[in-house]
């Protein structure tokens, strides 16, 4: 018995058991089941029948599904780009010598750790059509003469949810990039200064290349979270006005759970996968190339 347990293959299997059981049951199996559901006409409480590509065909012809794809891409691209730029800027500010640096860093991360659904409610109140504090402040300053309809107009609503998403995502990007900045040796900057590099050149030719691997990973996660975002939209607009903020995740929820059409919801979820894979592969290969350029070995 003892001998048997000393075998690393047996013991390894035994140690893997709890994690493997949970993940196979609630991750791998549902992934497969989701794929299957996407090709059936399953409804809540009724097992589905195989319908082939019917769900995907109807989604292609569905103007709302196409709009949700556009919304998702727009939301992801704009929010990710803004998050990256602001996050990098904030990280570089926090990397300078500052009083109470540890405290500042802790405070900056707050938007990321509180429940998104709850901070989204705060944004909902800030965006209120009649009592928005932002409108109040602008009106007092004389910038606007009537209150802004943040969530009532399609493009305004798209921008408003993007701002809320950026607010939540910037701390994550900034803190991760800050960790990357702290690993860059100061001697590189000293050498660059001695060679007469300007601030911009130091940023362009020292900071950016040294940071690329971490940027790739952080942005992959950021894109992944943004593309599959659900709760922010669900709380702020439920996809409105005129479905202008419906993302693929919220539409898939609406079709599957309140709508009861599991098959179509699952098909929408499957339709998200190629985009996610593309984002992951893009950053993975971007990352590898940079590692090689910096003289790092192949893994």
């Amino acid at each position, binding site marked *: 018995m003892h001998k048997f347990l000393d075998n690393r293959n047996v013991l390894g299997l035994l140690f893997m058991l709890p994690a493997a059981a949970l993940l196979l049951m609630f991750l791998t199996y549902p992934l497969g089941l989701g794929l299957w559901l996407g090709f059936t006409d399953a409804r809540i409480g009724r097992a589905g029948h195989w319908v082939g590509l019917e769900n995907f065909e109807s989604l292609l012809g569905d103007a709302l599904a196409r709009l949700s794809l556009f919304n998702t891409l727009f939301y992801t691209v704009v929010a990710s780009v803004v998050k990256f730029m602001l996050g990098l800027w904030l990280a570089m500010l926090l990397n300078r010598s500052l009083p109470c640096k540890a405290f500042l*860093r802790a405070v900056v991360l707050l938007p990321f750790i509180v429940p998104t659904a709850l901070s989204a409610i705060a944004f909902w109140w800030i965006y209120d059509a009649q009592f928005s*504090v932002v409108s109040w402040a602008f009106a007092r300053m004389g910038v606007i003469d009537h209150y802004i309809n943040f969530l009532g107009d399609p493009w305004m609503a798209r921008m408003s949810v993007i701002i809320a998403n950026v607010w939540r995502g910037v701390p994550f990007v900034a803190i991760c990039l800050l960790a990357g900045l702290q690993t860059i040796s100061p001697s590189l900057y000293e050498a660059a200064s001695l060679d007469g590099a300007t601030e911009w050149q130091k940023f362009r030719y020292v900071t950016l290349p040294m940071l690329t691997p971490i940027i790739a990973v952080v942005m992959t996660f950021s894109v992944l979270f943004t593309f599959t975002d659900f709760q922010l939209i669900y709380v702020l607009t439920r996809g409105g006005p005129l479905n202008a903020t419906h993302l693929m995740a919220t539409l898939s929820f609406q079709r599957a759970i309140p709508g009861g059409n599991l098959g179509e919801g699952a098909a929408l979820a499957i339709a998200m996968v190629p985009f996610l894979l593309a984002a992951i592969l893009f950053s993975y290969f971007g990352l590898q190339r940079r590692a090689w350029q910096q003289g790092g070995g192949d893994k």
Partner: protein
Amino acid sequence: MTERTEDTRGMDYLESLPRRWVTLYLPLGGFLFVLLFPFYWMTMTSFKPDAELLSRDANPFWIQHPTIAHFEKLLFHTSYPEWMWNTIIVSVVATFVSLIASVFAAYAIERLRFRGSKSVGMAIFLAYLVPPSILFIPLAAIVVELGLFDTRWALMLTYPTFLIPFCTWLLMGYFRSIPYELEECALIDGATRWQILTKIILPLAVPGLISAGIFAFTLSWNEFIYALTFISSSEVKTVPVGVVTELVEGDVYHWGALMAGALLGSLPVAVLYSFFVEYYVAGLTGGVKE
């Protein structure tokens, strides 16, 4: 990391004070203002009487007549305390289940190096990239089939699906940093694998365990889509879902109570986080750096 601040930018003293204000303090102040304003606003709103909330004339940034009526309403006239209790119990159980499963898995992958451990490690990382919003539909079907629909078990058993991959990945990194020699010595002295794990590896990996635990706890506390889909009765809801679905009924929004609910629901994670900031940041950046 903080000790190094002195020499990271050794030439900062060359910068004139006005320039420092424009390039550093002003933008930083702007960031802090925007990032913290929603919290300030939540707090202000939750202590304001309704009359003040709905008046356009009063200065909205301050409270004239603070009141705790919204908190009273929340705690004694809604199911809020139950939601709080559900969130706590679900988060604690999910976190502990995930931590235990992850410790064994990470140790097996990183140290036992059984046949196929490399690919299992890779699979764990890939599992980490599967977003809940593409899993919730089939998971809902499974939860119904298992008879777990509308119970806390549905959440306690599904949360580990996104916690275990993260915790395992993080702990693998920690275990890797513990020298092999320690284990070899113990093996030569006749220790069993179980003794090695509990007496040598775990005590050395305590910071990693705390990081993973804090991270897992905040992730479970913040989880929304599974809790929204798998739960329908008010008495088993979690705080985020309860506040969003039950306090937002009707045409008249009770902003005071909503903000009080958001504030109370955010406080536990914020307080916990403030005690373990360093561990949390280590977990966050550790997960990204690997």
